[in-house]
């Protein structure tokens, strides 16, 4: 039976070999073994690739053993140690570098194309890279995180620009010098400009007009408008701080870029004079001077604006400490000058601003600290209003 079984094995080509094996197995003088000896076939088995260091070790072993190590014999010769003296390593390294350089060039080309395309829309490169990383599978980021890093960077850049202007403050004596330095550092640090975002505000006004005045023939009463406004999106709105507990925020104006739970991120125009003693009238006068390129007073001694005001840029404003005002224009077709805006008694507010086609709203910051998403869902509650006295109370 054993003979029959073994005959099927491919190792025994002839019956003579088989007979020899069986005789040796069952003879007393032969090398009897209770098991079959299997020889390595040498094919169909490859060792996995090993690190450079491993190759070095194995080569040392070869030297020590005098070429007797069995393990090395089994590995095919082309895969033994990578520091094979026969291989021309310089060639290999050069080849590798060339391919890498080609790849990098390709990436740079595509980036250039993208940046050319987007430069026309005036979005800085940093932003594009950041938003590209959203699709990056390895470093996945949400919009919120990306925007947070953007705000952080631009604010630090603004500080740098201001300090650069501070350093050369005494050397700048004429209007033109100031303007050149200002433009230079704004460009270098990529500080966002108000003019680029006015289109965002136009978008928002369209949205809010549709929301608040859906039917031009029958305007809503004030008590119907307010709940709608409280749940509306405010990104893109022009916001003015009418009062604040913090120093130097009063009469600040800007476009809302983003809304956190406790903060508005707003973009302030350059040349907007802000301070606790500065009225809106003074602000208006100084703004004309800025736009005509007057940065120094007529004596030529004192500068009209601080460097912070010249640079402008992003600002984070805490809702808790401020009262905001937003101005909403009517739809052009809604109100002609002869038409009465509404017949209801309650909304006398609507009637009087007819001359301007504008409406003013107050946003009470301490009661507004919700995320914009939550604001639409959450039921707001009236509370004890004692904490609002500092902000809303009569001033004397």
């Amino acid at each position, binding site marked *: 039976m054993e003979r029959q079984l073994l005959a099927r094995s491919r190792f025994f080509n002839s019956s003579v070999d088989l007979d020899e094996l069986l005789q040796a197995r069952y003879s007393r003088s032969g090398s009897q073994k209770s098991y079959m000896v299997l020889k390595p076939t040498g094919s169909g088995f490859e060792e996995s690739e090993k690190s450079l260091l491993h190759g070095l070790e194995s080569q040392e072993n070869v030297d020590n053993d005098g070429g007797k190590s069995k393990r090395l014999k089994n590995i095919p010769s082309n895969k033994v140690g990578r520091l094979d003296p026969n291989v021309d390593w310089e060639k290999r390294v050069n080849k590798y570098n060339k391919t890498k350089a080609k790849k990098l060039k390709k990436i740079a080309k595509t980036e250039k194309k993208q940046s050319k395309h987007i430069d026309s829309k005036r979005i800085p490169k940093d932003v594009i890279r950041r938003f590209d990383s959203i699709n990056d599978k390895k470093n996945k980021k949400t919009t919120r995180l990306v925007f947070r890093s953007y705000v952080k960077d631009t604010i630090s850049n603004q500080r740098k620009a201001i300090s650069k202007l501070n350093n050369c403050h005494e050397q700048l004596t004429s209007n033109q010098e100031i303007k050149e330095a200002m433009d230079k550092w704004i460009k270098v640090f990529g500080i966002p400009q108000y003019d680029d975002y006015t289109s965002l505000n136009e978008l928002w006004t369209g949205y809010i007009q549709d929301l608040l005045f859906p039917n031009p023939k029958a305007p809503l009463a004030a008590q119907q408008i307010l709940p709608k406004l409280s749940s509306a999106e405010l990104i893109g709105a022009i916001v003015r701080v009418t009062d604040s507990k913090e120093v130097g925020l009063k009469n600040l104006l800007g476009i809302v870029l983003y809304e956190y739970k406790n903060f508005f991120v707003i973009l302030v125009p350059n040349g907007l004079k802000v301070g606790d003693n500065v009225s809106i009238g003074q602000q208006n006068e100084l703004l004309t001077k800025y736009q005509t390129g007057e940065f120094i007073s007529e004596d030529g001694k004192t500068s009209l604006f601080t460097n912070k005001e010249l640079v402008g840029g992003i600002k984070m404003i805490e809702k808790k400490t401020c009262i905001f005002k937003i101005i909403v224009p009517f739809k052009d077709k809604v109100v002609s000058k002869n038409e009465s805006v509404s017949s209801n008694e309650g909304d006398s507010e609507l009637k009087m601003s007819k001359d301007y086609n504008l409406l*003013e709203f107050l946003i*009470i910051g301490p009661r*507004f600290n919700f995320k914009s998403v939550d604001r639409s869902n959450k039921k707001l509650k009236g509370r004890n209003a004692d904490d609002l006295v500092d902000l809303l109370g009569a001033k004397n």
Partner: protein
Amino acid sequence: MLFDLNIPWPSTTYAAPSASEIAALKSILAMLQHLQYTHIALNFQLDPSLKLTKKDFAKKSPNPIDLSLFEHQFNLKIYTRITLTLHDPADFPGLKLFSDHFDLIAIKPLNDRALSVAITNFDFDIISFNYKENLKYWLRNKAVHSGAAKGKYFEIVYAPVLQPDTRKNFLSVCKNLVRASRSQGILISSGAERSVQVKTKLDLQIMCKIINIAPHRVAQIINENPSKVMISGRLRNQSYKQSVAMGSDILETKKHKIDDDEIAVLRKLQKK
């Protein structure tokens, strides 16, 4: 700034007051302006015998006070207020009838139960008492403090102290209130029916001393607490749940106009 949140409207019903009554009211307002008051509330004391329902206000407004009579005559900010006497909270007409039409809402509880029920359930600003008579119930410390914690203020009306027959009643009610509230959450107002009964700020400070109010609370009672009440009352009507409001100043009573400079600034910043 000085507040007087209780100048009684001449009639307690919806009948229009006579010309002489209006003239008397105007003389009070002139006196207040002379004494450098800035914020005034006209108090409509609704007659409790009138049983009003929603149908009564289908055509007429629940607010009989005509502020146009005083327009452009005084340099005062004039608000309206209603005082409702509460006997039994069960047959109470409901604040919703009035809350949209008055800047301030006050209640006058006649018994202990009415006071505690009103504090827990109703939305109003001021709790007032009748200082011409003795208080018929004992003010409990707990009830008064829970009211103060919710932003309700207790009112002291000082006109009765100027008449000899009601003076002792005034003092006894004040004593009761100051004891129960520990001089927290109190505000002071005149309730003047004649121009002589209005007092200056200095007089008010002395009066606070007489009724044994803690010295560090005096400034609060005269200035801070009335302005707090005024803001919470105005926010109820002018804003949506205290979050968004019309106009640019909550306490402003004049017709609102957008600043010309504001528009000039916005125009300059527009896209070229």
